[in-house]
């Protein structure tokens, strides 16, 4: 071609129409001793590697190393991140938990090996390469369509245009041309450069804005791209609202709301505040605040833990108050005791029990029928299993313990003993006993609400009345009911006694 005369010739290319003619040409060229050859085809032609003498690639090795790097990275990353730098316990798994690390290790192995295959292939092929002498011939465009090309490089030892031309012609090529250097301008066109600059410049603006905001001082409030939870939709006290007809944001409490401090300390502790407002009494308010207690110098004895050993210890102590109260009644080693003296500090420094006059003598809440009914309900749930539904101390658990002759069973107190009447055992003290426990009885503060504990006290008082009250205590209009109920009960008892008698007689007769 005349216009190509002055250009540097890089080699020679011949076009073929079929795979078979190309393959034959490749073999001929190889057998004639040419080394720097290459074939160009629209699709991979199998067997051309051997026909041209192309060596296999090292790509699989790259992939192997890529894959190993992936596994290593994943294991090291997870080990360090979850096992060393930032440990936290998740569903009891070890910090370095290989079974759980496997999926990510697998994924990264694949990812890195794939990167090695992809980028390795392009690198080994020295692509991308946009300026290629092959592309100077417009006819070469058909290499990606339906034509096959064989190329011999000009630097080959045996290269000789005339000889090669003859060889290719014999092999069946109708189009043989020298390949000349690509002399198209290497520079990127100016306008592309301009567009690129413009895009880069524009895209830098947000970045610069962010940097400026982060690095400079400003008195304006922070700029929020996303609000997150920085702005609360809650109204302030004097704001107007559209949610309510009266436009006021300040609303009354919902019915039944208990606000902090609504229950006075008297109600919570069962003690007279004036008499007991010492630091020591913190235990009644915050039972679990050990620090506060030790600071106050008093050892806390959680109600539920006062046990046999403690009773014995108490008994051993020469402290007359304790001794006396222990002997006085079976329920005697009471809340005061349980609270103040502890088994491991049974020394003279133990605080004396709280005197009865410091307990509230009466229930500090309104006692009405509903209140007592509530107490009945709670008593039957929590207390009756040991103390019996009638408070006689003959509950089911007690019966069972007797049946199996349990040696460690401390019988529950009958609530009908005189020492537990209100004059000897103030309501506050009864409340304290329920709250903190006594002897084997655990405290019920965690199970029963404050109000309900007082309700139980009220119900216990009612139970006690049933054994010591007289008909005079009953309102006049209800007495008739009681009388009739009494007669009925007597009649029934009598009947039952007769039945029993008959039965006994029958058994005797049988004998």
């Amino acid at each position, binding site marked *: 071609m005349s216009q190509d005369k002055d250009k540097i010739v890089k080699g020679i290319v011949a076009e073929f129409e*079929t*795979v078979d003619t190309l393959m034959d040409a490749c073999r001929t060229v190889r057998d004639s001793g040419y080394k720097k050859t*290459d*074939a*160009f*085809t*629209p*699709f*991979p*032609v199998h067997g*051309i*590697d051997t026909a*041209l003498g*192309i060596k*296999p*690639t090292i*790509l*699989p090795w790259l*992939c192997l190393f890529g*894959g190993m790097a992936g596994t290593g990275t994943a294991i090291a*990353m997870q080990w360090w*991140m*979850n096992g060393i730098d*930032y440990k*936290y316990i*998740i*569903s009891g*798994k070890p910090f370095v*938990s290989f079974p*759980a*690390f496997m*999926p*990510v290790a*697998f*994924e*990264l192995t*694949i*990812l890195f090996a*794939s*990167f090695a*295959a*992809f980028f*390795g*292939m*392009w690198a*080994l*092929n020295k*692509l*991308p*390469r946009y300026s*290629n002498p092959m592309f100077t011939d417009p006819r070469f*465009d058909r*290499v*990606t*369509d*339906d034509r096959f*090309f064989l190329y011999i490089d000009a630097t080959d030892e045996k290269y000789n245009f005339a000889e090669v031309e003859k060889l290719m012609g014999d092999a069946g090529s109708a189009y043989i041309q020298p390949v000349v250097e690509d002399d198209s301008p290497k520079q990127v066109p100016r306008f592309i450069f301009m567009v690129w600059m413009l895009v880069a410049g524009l895209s830098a603006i947000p970045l610069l804005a962010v940097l400026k905001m982060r690095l400079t001082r400003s008195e304006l409030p922070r700029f929020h*791209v*996303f609000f*997150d939870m920085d702005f609360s939709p809650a109204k302030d006290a004097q704001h107007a609202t559209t949610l309510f007809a009266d436009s006021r944001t300040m609303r009354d409490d919902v019915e039944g709301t208990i606000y902090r401090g609504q229950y006075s300390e008297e109600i919570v502790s069962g003690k007279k505040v004036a008499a007991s407002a010492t630091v020591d009494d913190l235990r009644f308010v915050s039972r679990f605040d050990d620090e506060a207690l030790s600071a106050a110098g008093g050892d806390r004895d959680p109600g539920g833990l006062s046990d046999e050993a403690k009773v014995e210890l108490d008994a051993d102590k020469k402290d007359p108050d304790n001794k006396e109260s222990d002997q006085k009644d079976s329920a005697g080693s009471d809340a005061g005791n349980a609270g103040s003296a502890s088994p491991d500090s049974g020394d003279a420094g133990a605080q004396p029990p709280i005197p009865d006059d410091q307990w509230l003598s009466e229930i500090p809440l309104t006692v009405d029928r509903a209140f007592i009914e509530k107490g009945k309900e709670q008593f039957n749930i929590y207390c009756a299993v040991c103390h019996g539904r009638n408070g006689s101390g003959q509950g089911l658990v007690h019966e069972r313990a007797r049946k199996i002759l349990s040696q460690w069973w401390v019988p529950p107190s009958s609530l009908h003993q005189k020492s537990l009447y209100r004059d000897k055992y103030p309501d506050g003290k009864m409340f304290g006993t329920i709250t903190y426990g006594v002897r084997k009885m655990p405290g019920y503060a965690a199970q029963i609400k404050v109000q309900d504990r007082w309700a139980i006290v009220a119900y216990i008082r009612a139970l006690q009345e049933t054994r010591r009250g007289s008909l005079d205590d009953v309102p006049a209009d209800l007495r008739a009911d009681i009388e009739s109920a009494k007669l009925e009960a007597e009649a029934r008892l009598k009947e039952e006694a007769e039945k029993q008698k008959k039965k006994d007689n029958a058994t005797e007769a049988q004998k």
Partner: protein
Amino acid sequence: MSLAIPNGLDNTVERPGERAPLVLGDTTYHDITEAVCQVAERKPSVTWWLGFLVSFILLQWFGFCIAYLLYTGVGVWGNRNPVFWGWPIVNFVFWVGIGHAGTLISAILYLFRQEWRTSINRAAEAMTIFAVACAGTFPGIHVGRAWLAFWLAPYPSLNLWMWPQFRSPLLWDVFAVSTYGTVSLLFWYMGMVPDLATFRDRSKNKWRRMAYGILALGWSGSSRHWMRYEKAYALLAAFAAPLVLSVHTIVSFDFAVSQVPGWHTTIFPPYFVAGAIFSGFAMVLTLMIPARTILGLEKLITLRHLENMCKIILATGSIVGLAYGTEFFIAWYGQVEAEKFAFVNRALGPYWWAYWIMVTCNVISPQLFWFKKIRSTPWIIVVVCIFVNIGMWFERFVITITSLSRDYLPSAWAYFSPTWVDWSMLIGSFGLFFTLFLLFCRLLPIINMAETKATLAKQYHMSHDHAAGEGH
């Protein structure tokens, strides 16, 4: 150079001692180039414009819904206690599943030397990538504060000073789906480079030539390049094959590793993978059958291709049906009260309708493919495949919603109801998918020309030998 195929357009008939041809008619290498390139080179048809318009409007609607969600918060969805996974996760699993067919066709069928894959793998891979894009959207916006979704990545943060929790399947999922998306993209792009070079070399327009030229990386078809390229392709196929299986396995771990009755089962990984292949092939067929007719590619995507895919749908559909049965058997055999309840509740509880839609579409409808007549009638295939897609969406719905709405704590039970945003996002994600797919049809080679030509060369070679043999 032309080549006559004796049995016309019906290559579904097996002829003893012969391989059925996969490229039909008097097709030459140049015909393949023409057939594929004309799709992108000629002016888009009215059908294309209509499809694109609808898809694009749906995509805008999807974008609007995402913006509304980000501005307002996740409360715009129907996700309420106890169903916090709701539709976003249903859609996520659905789309990830769809995304399995592409790489499966490319990788596993390649490794098994199933040559019929050549004319469908490109579109299937593209579909994979678009499906993964749809899938990736949903967990991204489901995290609540989507602008902090990058917290999923283990990057050294100066604000948080903490690392992700690698013992959680949800994090494995992040790695699995992102690896899958990346590798699929590499695989797709690499497979496309020789065809992009074809596009480049055919371009009349300077700009087109430049754009395709940049994408084609200076591909020249050198034998050395082809040799390494083929090696890399085989290696990528070998890596992608276990990857495909791992992705839906790990997605199933999201469910199976938890304690929720109906989720906590070891059958999930194989069951999910079979379901994913099932739904993916159905989606490929749903797209390819109209595409081959509209774009005039019947000679390259032949009935035999369709029939082979129907057989895979039949096989995987039967596996899925078996898995449904096995789940019930194990629920009864295991004698765990909560587990038994979960499955009875699926079939007979408040979502019974979803369960039976699922069974009808997934178990019964693919069984039609036992009949050759149905397997080789394109419009019936499309109908069945649409049913399969509906069924597979409902499968994810049934698994996610029924188990969450009634788990161990009866006092927390509730019925899930989607909102208009849920509906819009499901439909909108189809807008994203179809917009990408239609653009792909217009801009990129939708059939792997180089490989199809290689198949044709082999076919030509064989018939040549055959003719030569007869001559002797």
